């Protein structure tokens, strides 16, 4: 990937993220922060694609960074982290892979089909692990406090 292509990818990803934040109708005050989240994710993603071959880590590291950014911004703007996480991570959702999986299946190229299915699952796993590490740990801490206060069995 040349520098020019990388810049175009980042720009397109940022515009796409901005579009999704408008489509999901998040609070207008937070659109800018969500778009910045998408921008950071795209930059990290492009860098990872350049230096790492494994699709798992290509998606795991950006997802991790996006979640960390979202949790920080949620505390800065005093709002839930979910809108930020969803908008920042949307660029990693393997829409392209889904298309190629379908395309290879339809055109009867079964070896490529098998590879893309596995890659799609790997990407999904990468994103999932990236979100877990930060978001779920924070949730577990908050939830155990909540349980103690409200006496939930």
């Amino acid at each position, binding site marked *: 990937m040349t520098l020019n292509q990388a810049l175009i990818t980042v720009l*397109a990803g940022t515009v796409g993220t*901005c579009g999704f934040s408008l489509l999901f109708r998040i609070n207008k005050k937070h659109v800018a922060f969500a778009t910045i989240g998408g921008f950071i994710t795209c930059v990290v993603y492009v860098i990872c694609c350049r230096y790492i071959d494994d699709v798992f880590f290509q998606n795991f590291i950006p997802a991790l960074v996006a979640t960390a950014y979202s949790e920080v911004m949620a505390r800065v703007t005093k709002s*839930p982290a979910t809108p930020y996480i969803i908008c920042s991570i949307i660029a990693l959702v393997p*829409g392209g892979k889904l*298309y*190629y999986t*379908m395309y290879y299946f339809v055109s009867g190229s079964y070896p490529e089909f098998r590879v893309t299915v596995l890659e799609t699952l790997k990407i999904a796993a990468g994103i999932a692990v990236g979100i877990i590490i930060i978001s779920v740990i924070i949730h577990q801490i908050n*939830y155990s406090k909540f349980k103690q206060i409200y006496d939930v069995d």
Partner: protein
Amino acid sequence: MTENNKQDTEAILSLAMDLGKSMIKCGAEIDRVEETIIRICHAFGMKKTEVFSIVSMINVTTVDPDGHAYTQSRRVYSYSTNLGRLERLNSLSRSICCQAVSFDEAREILDTIIGEKNGFHTTACIGAVLAAGGFAVFFGGTIKDCLAAMPIAVMIYLMNTYIKARGMSKLFYTALCSIVSGFLAIFFVRIGFGDNPAMIMIGDIMLIIPGVTLINSIREMLCGDLMSGILRLLESLILSITIACGFSIPILICAAV
């Protein structure tokens, strides 16, 4: 126990559950919904509250200070993603919990939020256009692909607002949406408006793909809500297969013609 007291408890439970139901309809995670309902019931003085919720159903039993138990349930038929409304519902529940609003005020605010129409919104439509165009280029398309993905995005958004709102099932709507956008993408390339049908379709797939559902399902399963996590995971898998089948029909037909 007076009759008046009983009505109060029922009204409080109704408020908490209506809030929870509209949160699910905006795409909230189940643990957030359950937590909100418990917090609200406690804020109005209930002694103990038990909640069971999955994506299509909420069931709550609450015990008032006199020891009487009340149960209500809500059925949720469909949900979409509206993060702005979710945020407002969240801040409403926060102000209820810190006693910043009275019961009547809270009911009034909630009714205004629920009463808002989910109709056409210009900014959301622009968002769909930007998202489709942006991701067509992100996955390797040209400027022409980006421009071709945009009118299809408008169509998807219009279908989403006007057809899905009429109670059509999500699966059927997704299939219809995929087939029509696939035909349009190939048509645009045939008349020279767009270079690569694959990139145009990928841009538009990003709008229909259940990404939010998938992210939520993983989060829910890891947070301990296996039930709704599995339901959402299945839903996103089935929807993905539907999208793939939907887009493959135009490809197969147009390859033959």
